[in-house]
């Protein structure tokens, strides 16, 4: 009742002006970063700064205009945060391109900008094409099935391919794509639709142990199935990151849907069993754990696992200190794959702890906006969907940044919006579009259906 009163009393403002202001600031960060890279590395402002800046500005302002027209009540902070992270990522990737000796027209930054264009187009398409997020509830099982098919695609001989020990890519002609990124979005939709329907049964309490109600044994089916799927991804595709992400997502959404702490205990227990078994039995995983615990034992070794990537990144971050070396004065190119897995290490070296903290704060804000959307959302499916999408960011950032800073063993996930990687960038733009669509629905004022005065008067007379 109180929640309903609250929803009636407060009307969210559209705040599109605030969004535009923040977007312009984010453009200054993105284009300023690009200019600073040129000045730092080549001692001159890059020749294509106008073309580059113009392209970035068109993309960002275009996204803003789409939001203004089709989702006027959407959250004002999400889009600027994403634009800022994307712009910063482009500048850092450009810096690494220059170190690798790429010219203006090739290199990863150029490709990343093309992927970003595709991402923004899909962002706009999602917002325009999907006017009500509740429609997605109809495709619960379809999207679950599609996600499983996408996850299995890399296993097919012919189109699947091993890259760096993980079998998560598909190649069709000249294009390569990580279907797992798209599967992530579809799985969240499937989880949300499934849990909305079945949460009453899943919330029933079973045995009570140490003050916490454990779920009933017969309800363990879904979580066990999800656990097995995650283990299968781990064993067959050697993809530690995705396996952790999918299982974590399911446990979080299960907990949010049922409000039972027992599920976290069951999920955490299953995770521990899986993690310990994987660390003992799978050589790929046990090497990662060994590198995590003793990175310096494997630095520049000739045989066995080598930890150069992690150690170089730690050297870099230590050298960067609080304010960083400045663009061009560090040597982030010493880290292999600095532009994808270790972009946080490269940022830590040249831009310092101050920037790393700002970046992590931005991710925190993205997650906060997602959870806030879930709180004010009026339908259960939308609530669960936005919790799932927000926690996919939270898990992904925790796993990547935790891996780079040696809090947890390193796993191969991309840093959302910062890292080079087309599939991940495009999928994350679609996730932001979905979050904006839900928040637009949630913040939109309710249609005015108040009873007429005479009706209210009758009610008052009836009261004792």
């Amino acid at each position: 009742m109180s929640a309903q009163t609250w929803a009636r009393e407060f009307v969210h403002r559209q705040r599109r002006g605030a969004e535009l202001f923040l977007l312009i600031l984010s453009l200054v960060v993105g284009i300023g970063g690009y200019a600073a890279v040129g000045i730092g590395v080549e001692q001159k402002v890059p020749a294509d700064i106008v073309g580059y800046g113009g392209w970035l500005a068109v993309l960002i302002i275009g996204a803003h205009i789409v939001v203004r027209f089709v989702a006027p009540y959407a959250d004002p902070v999400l889009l600027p945060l994403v634009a800022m992270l994307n712009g910063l990522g482009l500048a850092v990737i450009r810096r690494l391109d220059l170190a690798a000796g790429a010219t203006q027209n090739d290199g990863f930054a150029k490709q990343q900008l093309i992927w970003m264009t595709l991402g923004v187009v899909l962002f706009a398409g999602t917002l325009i094409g999907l006017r009500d997020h509740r429609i997605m509830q109809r495709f619960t099982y379809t999207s679950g099935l599609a996600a499983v098919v996408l996850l299995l695609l890399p296993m097919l001989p012919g189109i699947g391919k091993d890259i760096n020990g993980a079998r998560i890519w598909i190649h069709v002609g000249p294009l390569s794509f990580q279907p797992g990124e798209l599967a992530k979005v579809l799985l969240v939709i499937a989880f949300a639709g499934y849990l909305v329907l079945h949460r009453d049964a899943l919330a029933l309490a079973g045995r009570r142990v140490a003050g916490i109600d454990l779920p009933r044994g017969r309800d363990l089916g879904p979580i066990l199935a999800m656990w097995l799927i995650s283990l299968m991804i781990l064993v067959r595709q050697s993809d530690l990151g995705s396996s952790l992400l999918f299982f974590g997502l399911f446990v979080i959404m299960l907990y949010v849907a049922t409000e039972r702490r027992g599920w976290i205990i069951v999920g955490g227990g299953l995770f521990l069993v899986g993690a310990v078994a994987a660390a003992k039995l799978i050589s790929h995983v046990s090497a990662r754990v060994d590198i995590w615990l003793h990175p310096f034992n494997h630095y520049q070794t000739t045989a066995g696992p080598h930890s150069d990537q992690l150690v170089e990144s730690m050297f870099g971050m230590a050298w960067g200190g609080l304010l960083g070396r400045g663009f061009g004065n560090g040597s982030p190119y010493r880290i292999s794959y600095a532009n994808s897995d270790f972009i946080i290490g490269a940022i830590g070296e040249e831009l310092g702890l101050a920037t790393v903290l700002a970046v992590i704060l931005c991710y925190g804000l993205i997650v906060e906006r997602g959870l806030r959307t879930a709180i004010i959302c009026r339908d259960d499916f939308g609530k669960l969907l936005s919790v799932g999408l927000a926690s996919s960011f939270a898990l992904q950032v925790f796993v990547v940044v935790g891996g780079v800073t040696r809090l947890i063993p390193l796993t191969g996930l991309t840093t959302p919006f910062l890292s080079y990687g087309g599939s991940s960038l495009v999928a994350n733009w679609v996730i932001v579009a979905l979050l904006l669509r839900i928040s637009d629905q949630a913040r939109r004022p309710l249609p005015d259906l108040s009873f007429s005065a005479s009706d209210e008067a009758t009610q008052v007379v009836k009261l004792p």
Partner: protein
Amino acid sequence: MSELTLFLIRIAFLAILWIFVLSAVSVVRSDMFGARVSDGAATASPRAAKKSKKQPKPAKPRRGAPTHVLVVEGRSQGERADLSKAPILIGRGADAAIVLDDDYVSTRHARIASSGDQWFVEDLGSTNGTYIGSVRINQPTAIAIGTRVRIGKTILELRK
């Protein structure tokens, strides 16, 4: 490029970045506390009064617009109410515009009202809920001609 210039550029970049982050935080903050209270509660009476003044002359229904609600399934099948008397209260109670003889229906169960050209059905906190298709509604939901609204064991539709 001198050392000092590079240092200044570095500091300027960090400053812009943090200005961005802090402005984002301040927008979040104003979003939390700055939402204005809707005029629903404070100015309810003048607006309602204006509405009741308007009510005696219902607007001429547009072509293609629904004119009445019809019970199409259930024990009260065939019962109807004119949409010109909106909002229409549906329930088991005597004050409802459509009185349903159905044990699964609450006294004041749901109502149908319009906002602009659009008709909405809203659940009034009933025990068994109001459904559109298989989905239980928990906010005013737009309905069109032929949308089947299920209340207890009864199904209602908007008709022309």
